[in-house]
């Protein structure tokens, strides 16, 4: 079931919420939690009921093992290894087995056959959450929870499918809180407002720009050598689509959870405002970055044992983070690229720590932002392209090596300016004028929006929108016209009621054209 579907919005959610509130009002708190687990499993089973067995089995296994790890001291390390390896084996089988067999056949000339394995929805997310639980149980950092609470932690439907990846320390205590009917309406108002903003970001913006990125990346399979403006148009369209799709989904998840009185962790904080790659990763898919830092980077040794080991660990963490997104060399390359970016950024910081470059700060900030943003877009090309050849073709186009061309229909409408750019070497091509124009119009409207407007967290920080305290942060940020919106906050007012209603209705109107969330595939 998709958040942006009629059945979810008008049947599942109202019914689930109504029964949950009713049970809580009758002080049947445990029954309300059972109801929520049931609804979450129904939500998960909507796609493929068969995989309910997988998620249920995974929960039972990890819960029992977690109990053992937190109570038994003997052989606890062995138990932890068994737990981690079992979880990773399942993930590996469902996610990487086909890829592994394909690569083996390709490199060794063998012809092993494995039927296509259908990836169970959310397996990457619930596996990571439970591995973290096992590790913390081993460290005796988990408290006593019963199986019901644990099940809700794993399956809670707002975050089950594509995150935010929740940590048991953040969520389980919230399930144990006494229900307060006084704050129930406030939670619904805040949750609905956050949900409406996410809904708008996903359905209007991400789905609106999606056709341009899809056409571009699919056409480069057939027609290679895109010219400069076409290559940048397609790549930027995907850059914006992915951000609004995933951050929109995260806002929707945070809003939905809030309606049930649960505050989820922050997952996005205006990553495209970042002026260096480390800052980008502090703002993009924050819960995954935190997981990788806490359970991979630190486990590998972190920044102990010298610079070389530190850089190696950084690279390996990002490489594995890339592979987490999917079984493909494009994801591995994307991860490796970001690992390299981080190494270069940290190395640069060390080399020039005390050197002052005599240029105005605003130029420095803008240049740093531009460089970071271009690096990120280049990364997305590898992430999205369907083959390495295609990615390289696009990057060559973006470099200008394939020339600079615009549609003939636009050139003739530019008049003297058209003649001028022709003199500069800009050529023309036939067809695609309307699509080219719309693609760039979207970019020219949406990219400044990303940079200028505050994000959902900024808007709701006074109402504890998420578990983060981030609030209009400007450090390591390129934020033009920040002064204009630094005090903007959601509040109970007429103007916000109008804005939220518009966002919600525009989202509803998009339901006629159903589209899945990009991060469902991971």
């Amino acid at each position, binding site marked *: 079931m998709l958040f942006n579907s009629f059945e979810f919005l008008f049947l599942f959610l109202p019914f689930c919420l109504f029964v949950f509130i009713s049970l809580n009002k009758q002080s049947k708190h445990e029954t309300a939690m059972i109801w929520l687990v049931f609804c979450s499993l129904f939500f998960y089973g909507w796609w493929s009921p068969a995989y309910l067995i997988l998620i249920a089995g995974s929960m039972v296994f990890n819960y029992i093992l977690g109990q053992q790890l937190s109570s038994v001291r003997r052989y606890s390390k062995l138990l932890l290894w068994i737990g981690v390896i079992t979880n990773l084996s399942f993930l590996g089988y469902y996610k990487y087995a086909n890829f592994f067999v394909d690569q083996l056949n390709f490199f060794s000339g063998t012809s092993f056959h494995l039927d296509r394995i259908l990836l169970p929805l959310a397996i990457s997310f619930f596996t990571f959450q439970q591995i973290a639980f096992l590790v913390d149980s081993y460290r005796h950092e988990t408290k006593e929870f019963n199986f019901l609470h644990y099940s809700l932690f794993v399956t809670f439907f707002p975050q089950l499918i594509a995150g935010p990846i929740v940590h048991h320390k953040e969520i389980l205590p919230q399930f144990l809180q006494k229900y307060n009917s006084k704050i129930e*309406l406030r939670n619904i*108002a805040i949750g609905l407002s956050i949900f409406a903003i996410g809904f708008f970001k996903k359905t209007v913006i991400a789905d609106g720009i999606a056709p341009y990125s899809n056409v571009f990346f699919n056409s480069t399979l057939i027609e290679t050598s895109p010219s400069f403006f076409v290559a940048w148009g397609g790549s930027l369209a995907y850059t914006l689509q992915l951000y609004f799709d995933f951050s929109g989904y995260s806002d929707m998840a945070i809003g939905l959870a809030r309606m049930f009185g649960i505050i989820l962790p922050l997952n996005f904080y205006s990553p495209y405002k970042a002026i260096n790659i480390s800052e980008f990763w502090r703002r993009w898919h924050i819960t995954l970055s935190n997981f990788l830092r806490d359970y991979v980077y630190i486990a590998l040794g972190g920044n102990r044992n010298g610079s070389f080991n530190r850089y190696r660990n950084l690279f390996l963490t990002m490489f594995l983070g890339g592979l987490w997104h999917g079984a493909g060399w494009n994801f591995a390359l994307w991860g490796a690229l970001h690992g390299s970016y981080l190494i270069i950024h940290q190395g640069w910081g060390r080399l020039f720590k005390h050197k002052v470059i005599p240029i105005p700060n605003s130029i420095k900030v803008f240049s740093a932002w531009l460089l970071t943003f271009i690096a990120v877009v280049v990364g997305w090309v590898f992430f999205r392209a369907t083959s390495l050849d295609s990615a390289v073709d696009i990057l060559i186009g973006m470099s200008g090596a394939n020339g600079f061309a615009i549609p*003939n229909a636009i050139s003739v409408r530019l008049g003297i300016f058209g003649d001028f750019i022709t003199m500069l070497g800009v050529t023309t091509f*036939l067809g695609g004028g309307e699509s080219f124009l719309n693609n760039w119009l979207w970019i020219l409207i949406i990219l400044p929006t990303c940079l200028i407007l505050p994000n959902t967290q900024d808007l709701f920080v006074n109402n504890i929108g998420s578990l983060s305290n981030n609030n209009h942060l400007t450090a390591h940020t390129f934020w033009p016209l920040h002064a204009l919106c630094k005090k903007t906050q959601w509040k*109970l007012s007429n103007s916000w009621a109008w804005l939220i209603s518009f966002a919600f209705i525009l989202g509803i*109107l998009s339901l006629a054209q159903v589209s899945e969330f990009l991060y469902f595939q991971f």
Partner: protein
Amino acid sequence: MTIHSYLTRVFSISLGIFIIVGGFNYIINPYNIHNTERITGINTFKPEAAKRIRTFKKYQPFHIKPNTLILGNSRVEMGINPKHKNLTALGNVYNLGIPGMRFKDQATYANLIIQSEQITTLIIGIDFSDDIFRYDEVKKTLNTTKTVLWLEEPKDKLSSLWSLDAIKSSISTLINQHSQVSNRYNNGFNPANDYLPILKLEGQKVLFKQKMKTLDQVFKDKYWLEKMTDVDKSRLGSNVAIQVKQWLKQGIHVHVFINPYHNDYYQKLKEHNLFTDFNLWRQQVSQKLSRLVTFCDFTELGKSKSNERLNNNELRYFWEPSHYKKELGDIMLPLIMKGCNSV
């Protein structure tokens, strides 16, 4: 403001916007699905209808209660004018031409209308590529599509009132009220306004160049031809003939013609070694249909009219290699109605 009044306001504003959006889209009627008036300066031109032709032509004919249907694809849609003087005696005429649509689907659309309207005459323009598919596939598709079409009606109509696309299209319709935008008349005819700005700014050569490039890609594929066995080739035109016989049994007058093309189109067929197949198809279709109905093959007419020009050097009878103008259709219509063994 209290939380309660905030939530009440959000729901009431949302409901209000929802109703206003539905009303707005109904009045503007950008896809011409609903039977609303065209208001000068508001929605006389329907630039967005071109994006939903397959949808709106399922419903629009019922609003004008046609007696005569013109079937075909984009060539017919912009070439055969329902208001032509030779058609006035045939009652309400609706141009059911739909771009890219093959005969099997055209027939399905027509049969839906025939079931509930008093159709007395059908004028059918056919194309080489439209007819090149296996007969058994045709029969299967005709039956299933018919059911699907009826099931789609509530979805089509609701999404034309409440969808983002509909709002965008309504706004675009309001903004683009001038004679050089794409349009569809209530009688289904396409005045081919889309070509006007291209001709004015880029010239007809550009249109030709672009179309020839597209034709190269289409003819290069040839998948539809390579799929055919010799038996299939001997059946060329059979599917049209079978359907035509059914209509004749229902007492409907049927006129069939082969669309004309510009000479460059025929040259392109030759370049791709398709001209022999094309002639075989013409021969088979002619044999099967001229026995049943009034039939015209306008291939030679197309060739002969290919290079006639207007004062501004624009071609008189063709927009580009595969689309003829209404002016050529006007010459063809008297012949179509009378029937011609050879033109």
